[in-house]
């Protein structure tokens, strides 16, 4: 053998693979990297195009677009303050109604309920996420809104002394119904995150409370809730992000009135709803205004979601959310763990 033990013809060591042999690996790596980069590019590109389509509106109205209150299609004037108002109000209603119920459920399932009920209850709550938003809208229009109207009327007249909450004449479709439907829609995600966070409370803190002679509720209050607060807040913010962006269910039950409603049961509008409703027949600056509304909505959801994520990573006390929490956040509504 003349060649040394480690070389073959062509001067390559036997330990090296031929360039052709290395090809599949390279192709795989660079191909997948390109796909990954695609994600980044898509989002940036979207921003750019969206700004392009709506820039005209911002240069015309400036900040009045966001905060002014005069959305007048007839007169071709587009100040979207009422839309922002409606978006925030309905989301806040959703939080007020939905978060306590979701957290109560999460505490009950994790700390109080009999073991064999845990899985069934979890599945049932998560099932709410599988219902498509248009079905929520359908149910809201034909069942919830008409059935709650008498109660709303009673409420508005009984509590008429509370500003904005009472005192008006309830409409069939209004802020409250929209907020209520949103509350139901965000139940699964807030509940899922709360459940996970509560499950990570170290048993040593619960034991410390019990060993001091605390009742079950006192233990929850002393050891579970304070520890879980950041995570639950994060879950609530994620729910808010979902509520802010929800279009179809809201557009069907909010009444589509581009004004700042004077009471809880007045008709209103949201950023997402106006886009869905007016898109079909919009032209020219109207279309740009709708895109601008979309941009505002996009930025709003980005901010809310960033805040949510910050709370959640704080709440998992250092663990990165690639575990079950990540799965829940990622999969959004239609996914159970």
């Amino acid at each position, binding site marked *: 053998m003349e060649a040394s033990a480690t070389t073959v013809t062509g001067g390559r060591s036997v330990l090296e693979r031929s360039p052709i042999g290395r090809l599949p690996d390279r192709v795989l790596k660079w191909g997948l990297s390109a796909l990954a980069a695609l994600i980044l590019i898509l989002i940036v590109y979207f921003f750019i195009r969206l700004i392009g389509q709506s820039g005209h509106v911002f240069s015309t109205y400036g900040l009045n677009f966001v905060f002014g209150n005069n959305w007048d299609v007839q007169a071709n004037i587009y100040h979207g303050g009422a839309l922002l108002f409606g978006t925030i109000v309905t989301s806040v209603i959703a939080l007020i109604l939905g978060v306590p119920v979701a957290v109560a459920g999460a505490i009950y399932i994790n700390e109080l309920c009999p*073991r064999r009920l845990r899985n069934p209850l979890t599945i049932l709550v998560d099932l709410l996420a599988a219902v498509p938003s248009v079905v929520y809208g359908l149910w809201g229009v034909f069942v919830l809104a008409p059935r709650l109207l008498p109660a709303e009327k009673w409420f508005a007249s009984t509590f008429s002394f509370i500003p904005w909450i009472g005192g008006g004449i309830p409409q069939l479709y209004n802020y409250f119904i929209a907020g209520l439907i949103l509350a139901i829609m965000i139940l699964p995600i807030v509940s899922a995150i709360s459940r996970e966070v509560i499950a990570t409370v*170290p048993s*040593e*803190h619960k*034991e*410390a*409370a*019990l*060993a*001091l*002679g*605390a*009742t079950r509720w*006192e233990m929850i209050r*002393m*050891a579970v809730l*304070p*520890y879980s*607060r950041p995570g639950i807040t994060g879950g609530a913010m994620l729910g808010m992000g979902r509520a802010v962006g929800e279009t179809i269910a809201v557009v069907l039950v909010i009444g589509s009135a581009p004004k700042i409603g004077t009471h809880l049961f007045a008709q209103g509008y949201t950023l997402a709803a106006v886009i869905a409703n007016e898109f079909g027949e919009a032209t020219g600056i109207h279309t740009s205004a709708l895109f601008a509304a979309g941009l505002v909505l996009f930025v709003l959801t980005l901010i809310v979601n960033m805040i949510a994520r910050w709370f959640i990573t704080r709440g998992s006390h250092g663990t990165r959310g690639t575990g079950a929490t990540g799965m829940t956040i990622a999969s959004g509504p239609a996914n159970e763990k």
Partner: protein
Amino acid sequence: MNPPDTTKEQTDMSTAGGPSPDRPEVAPQAPKAADAKKTGHAVNVKDLNAYYGNQHAIKNVTIEFPANEVTALIGPSGSGKSTVVRCINRMHEEIPGARAEGCVTLDELDIYAPNVDVTAVRRLIGMVFQKPNPFPTMSIFDNVAAGLRLTGTKSSDLKALVHSSLQSVGLWDEVKDRLNEPGIGLSGGQQQRLCIARTVAIEPEVILMDEPASALDPISTLKIEELVDELKERYTIVIVTHNMQQAARVANSTVFMLDGEVIEHDETNKMFTNPSDERTERYVTGKFG
């Protein structure tokens, strides 16, 4: 030939009125100081069986823990020492699938009686855990006051009570200027003393300690042991430990357990120098465990 559960029962030191139940007098103990002055509370465990699901963890255990004394439980891992202790303050039943049968009395009180409120039992029988566990979201002050707040102590009284608790565990001087700082900001040894302060603040009658110093450095361990020695003036103490030197240093009497059974229960000195059972002898001389 020693039958498996050779338990050494001690004379009931409780001064509760009324005749003490029939118990066979057994091997004499080293003389104790001033029997007549005992105002403490004794715990009696009788025929205790405990299970984790189907696993029979504690088998017919009978132990007397005399008032105002330190009794140590030693034995290899899995011998059931922690389980026994958790049955005394009824923490064992918090584990899903776990149950206990038998009789545990505090003085004359049967703590497993059907009408007994478990939270009341835990008021009287406090527990310190192996890993110091101050409440992470509470300040030092709030940690010590936690149990007091549960029982509705007036906030005007809290300061004085927290002060005296921290003093009795020797922590006051170290933390008096930072009572509002988070409890978890303290060192390991300080945290454990904080937990002890939290426990004594509500004035229990018995303190259970489950390997309280095993997560600590030697100096903190010594401090804890000194503390245990002082505390026994006011409380009856049961301490689980895997450290035999520790048992020798702090405990009046020691119980050796193996596989869920009590093998030997005797005055500490005697157990370590002249144990009656050969399994005890093998354990204390380090031949296993």
